[in-house]
Structure formats: C-alpha cells, structure tokens
C-alpha cells in the first residue's frame, strides 16, 4: 500500500526551478531513497514533503490524506517526522532528555499537569523515561544516556537524532543525508539501524549521497538531476541506467 504519494511536485524560487513536476510513490514498510548530484533538488523536495515550505504546484498525500502545504508541525502529528542535513540536537540537554522531547507528539499535558502531577502524568513521565531508554539502546547509545548531547562524537549525534525522531512514533521517517560526515564504521552502524527501523514497521525515506549505503539498504530509488526525476527503480536497475551514470559521471562515461 502507498504511504506517501508525490504527484507532480514543482518548486520555484524566483525563476529557479528547484523541483520540476516530480512524482513517485513510497510503499509501506520500505526503505526508499532519493539520490542525485549536489543541487539536484533533493532537500527542496524534502522540505516540500515535510511542510517546511509549500510546493509551488503539485499534490502530496500521506497515509490517505492530502498534506500539501500543511504546517510542518501538523504533518509531524500525522506521523511524518524528519531529520535535518545538519544535526539539530538540543545541545544543553542530556542524550536521554533529547529523546524524551521526541515523545512530545504522543504525550499530553501542559502547565497544569506539570504543576499538579496527577497520577496519569506521573505514569506518562515514567513511560517516557523507560521508552527513551529503550530507543537509546536500540540505536546503541544506552551508555551515553546521561551525557550532554554535544559531547557525543558526530556519528553518535546522528544516531541520537534518529532515536529522537523515532520517539514521535512516525509512520514515515525522512532522513536528510544521514551518512553525511560519517566514517565507514559509523555509516555501517547507521545502515544497520535503518534496516532495523524498517523491521519495527516504520517506512524510511532518505536522501543520500553515499551510493554504497543506498545500494545496500534501499529497496527502491528515485534519481533527481537538475530538479527533474530522471530514473526510478531497484538498486540493480539504477546502477545500470544510462541517464544515472551520465548524471553522476558525465555523458561520455555513459556512452563509453
């Protein structure tokens, strides 16, 4: 079943056509990748899908509902949660607290409940603490729970961001270049984590530069170049696609 459908999405910035009528459908329980050279319009597409800004044209539907132009916060509440290309941690908070914030959407209670702490609020806080610990164990950061988030090495900060996004219990997780800046070992840990996320029943849509990572974990790949979709298929199909080779290596290589 289709979880996310992107239909003819176009985004213009003052005459620059960043996304030109892009369409694809992300089936449930897959790892789906969007790849393309720098400036192909990948992050623009992500921003339009996640509600960071509305697309100029086109329609985006998620889980059976039209979410085109909806505020990011409301899209998140429907179960579509994203991470950013540059790590955006809450630096002054501990690792565990970062993940606890992630539960915001799936918990309730504001000032009144914080002050009076009725039994349901205390039960909720205990649950949030336990589940945050579980998520940290899931990404392999259990031992760092009490450290300040900004003391983690970069690779672990990425994993923490993923754990925090998972706390919001998304149906679809959008990862914007999760392997950027990671070394080989860290990338492998990330790949394992993404595959295990899919096993939890969460669909993953990622933008990625690291081709080896994408080929290893994605079931289906969309390739963008100059804002247009130039190919879609399985990793094997994409590897053999002449337009993709041309986009990545230049036209001469494709014809050689």
């Amino acid at each position, binding site marked *: 079943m289709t979880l996310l459908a992107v239909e003819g999405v176009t985004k213009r910035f003052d005459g620059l056509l960043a996304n030109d009528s892009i369409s694809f459908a992300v089936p449930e329980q897959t790892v789906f990748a969007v790849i393309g050279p720098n400036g192909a319009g990948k992050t623009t597409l992500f921003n339009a899908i996640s509600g960071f800004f509305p697309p100029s044209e086109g329609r985006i539907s998620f889980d059976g509902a039209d979410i085109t132009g909806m505020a990011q916060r409301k899209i*998140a509440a429907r179960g579509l949660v994203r991470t950013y290309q540059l790590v955006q941690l809450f630096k*002054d908070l501990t690792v565990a607290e970062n993940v606890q914030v992630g539960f915001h959407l799936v*918990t309730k209670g*504001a*000032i009144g409940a*914080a002050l009076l702490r009725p039994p349901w609020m205390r039960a909720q806080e205990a649950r949030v603490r336990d589940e945050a610990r579980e998520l940290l164990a899931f990404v392999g950061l259990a031992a760092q729970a*009490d450290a300040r988030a900004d003391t983690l090495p970069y690779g672990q900060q990425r994993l923490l961001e993923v754990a925090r*996004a998972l706390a919001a219990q998304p149906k679809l997780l959008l990862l914007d270049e999760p392997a950027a800046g990671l070394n080989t070992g860290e990338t492998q840990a990330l790949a394992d984590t993404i595959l295990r996320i899919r096993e939890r029943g969460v669909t993953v849509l990622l933008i990625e530069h690291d081709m080896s990572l994408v080929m290893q974990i994605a079931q289906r790949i969309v390739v963008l170049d100059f804002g247009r979709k130039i190919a879609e298929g399985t990793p094997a199909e994409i590897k053999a696609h002449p337009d993709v080779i041309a986009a990545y290596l230049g036209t001469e290589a494709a014809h050689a």
Partner: protein
Amino acid sequence: MISRSIIFIERWFAVGGALAGIALLAIVLVHGGYFVTVIGFAAIYGIFCTGLNFFMGYTGQASFGQNAFAALGGYGTAILCAGLGWQPVLALPLTMLISGTIAVVIGYPTLRLRGHYLAMATFALGLITYELSIEWISLTQGYMGYAGIPPLGIGRYELASDRQQLVALVIVLLIGVWIAQRLKDSRFGRALRAIAGSEAAANALGIDIARYKLAAFVVAAVYASVAGSLFAHFIGFISPEVFGLSMVTLSFTMLYLGGIGTIWGPIVGAVIASMLPEAFRGLKELQDIAYAGVLILILIFFPKGLAALPGMLARWRGEKAQAS
C-alpha cells in the same frame, strides 16, 4: 565517571547552599535593621529572575521589558490596597491575572519577532509602561509615587515587622522555586528547552513553538507581577523609578551571575548581586568600581554563572584523575 562525580559534587553544593541560605537568613533575622531590607530585595528579585529565567533561560528568548509586568503588579497592588482598601490576599491573585492576561495580549503579536527585534519590542514595552506610570497621574500619582501601601496580611492580621515580612517573602520565593522546578522537569519544560536548543528540530517534532514561547512569556510575566506586588507591600511605597530600566539591568546581572537556565542560579545571583554593593560600602567612592570589578571577575572565570561551578569542579577532578 564524570557524570557520577558531578552528581556527587552537586549534592555537596546543594547541602552547602541550603545551609548557607539558612545561616544567612538566621543572621539577618537576628541582626535586623537594614540587612532585612537588603535580603528582602534579594528575595523579591529572586522571584522576578526565576520567572524571567523561563523566558530567557529555558526558552532562550530575549526580553528587555519584563519590568513592565512588575510595574503592573506593583501599581495594581498600590491602587487596589492603598486606593480601594482591598485585602492583599485578594489583590495579589487579581494583579497576577491582569498581568498574565496583558502578557497574552502583548505577547501574541510580539513573539512573532525573533532575536534583536524581539529584544527591541520588549524593550519598548518596558519604556511605554515606565512613561505611563509617570504620565497617568490620576491612576499612578506620577513622579511622586504611591505611598501608604499596607504590608502583606490576611484579614485583620498584618505582618507588622520587617522580619515577619522577610519570612513571608522567603516562603513565597521557595514556592516560586518549587513551581519552577516542577514546570522545568516536565513535558512542558522539555518543550521550552527544546525551543532554546533548535527551533527547527522542535518544530519537526511537533512542538507548537509560538504557543510555548507565549506560555513562557506569560509565566515570566506572572512571576514579575508577584515580585512587583511584593515590593509594594514590603516597602509600602512605589514610584516609576522602582520598575525602571535599572530593574532590567540588575535582573540580567543576577541571571548571568548565578547561572541562566538553572533552577537555583537566579536565586544565587539575586543574593550576591544584592549583597555585593553592601559589602563594599566601606570603600565609599570606590564602591561601584569594586562591585563592577567583582562582577567582571566572576563572569570571566564562570562564564556560565556560579551554578556551573559543580560541573566545572567535577570536570577538573575527572581530568586530574585521568592524568594521574
């Protein structure tokens, strides 16, 4: 290892701080006189800064105009209690409600601004309130100030002596700190601190940023209002200068001196910034220079405020343990 040693050191600081606080209060209560006023001011400013900390510390926003809400509380109390003869226990919640409501009305449009623009807008709010308190003479009695405000009390029972009032101020302060602690360690408090950390990430996790900023602003306004009311009751007289620009600079000094974004930092800052000038009184004309010098030294060596001291000590010990 380091985190365990932080907890250990923090515990010692907590015990030491509590004992020092109790000792200070005991000495002041026995000694009486002018010191009661100094520590009373510290308690009132401690309440003000604990509130401001919600907006500036946890949520990471700038407000240069929170004195406006202290003025609302102070003048509200003066008008209700001295002008209309209301009971302080009834006037206090009403002024809190009025300040909170006005904070919602002003905050809703103003908090769309960010950074320097927000700082300027809130600064203007403080200036406007100051001008109003001077010009609206029929309500505020202008430059002359409002006198004859009764001390705190219930029914016929009034806190007649300064010492009794000081005890009441400290009790209100402790209630304020207790509330702050509860709010900080909750879903609400985490959402505020997330906004300070990264608005982009907070938004992606579904946190309604505008709403939580407004909530923090209103909480800060209500604390400020209580501080203003308590000042009016404690001194019995208020004038526009009391809630002027000096209140803004002094409260900022206290926040950064003690440690912004921590529960006890604002209190530590309020007590030290209130007592330091008194400690240097003997230096006469050099008093202000000595005061400024000590402030600068503290901020050079403890840029995150005195509340960061336990963490610094723990790190230092950790490094030493690793070296040996």
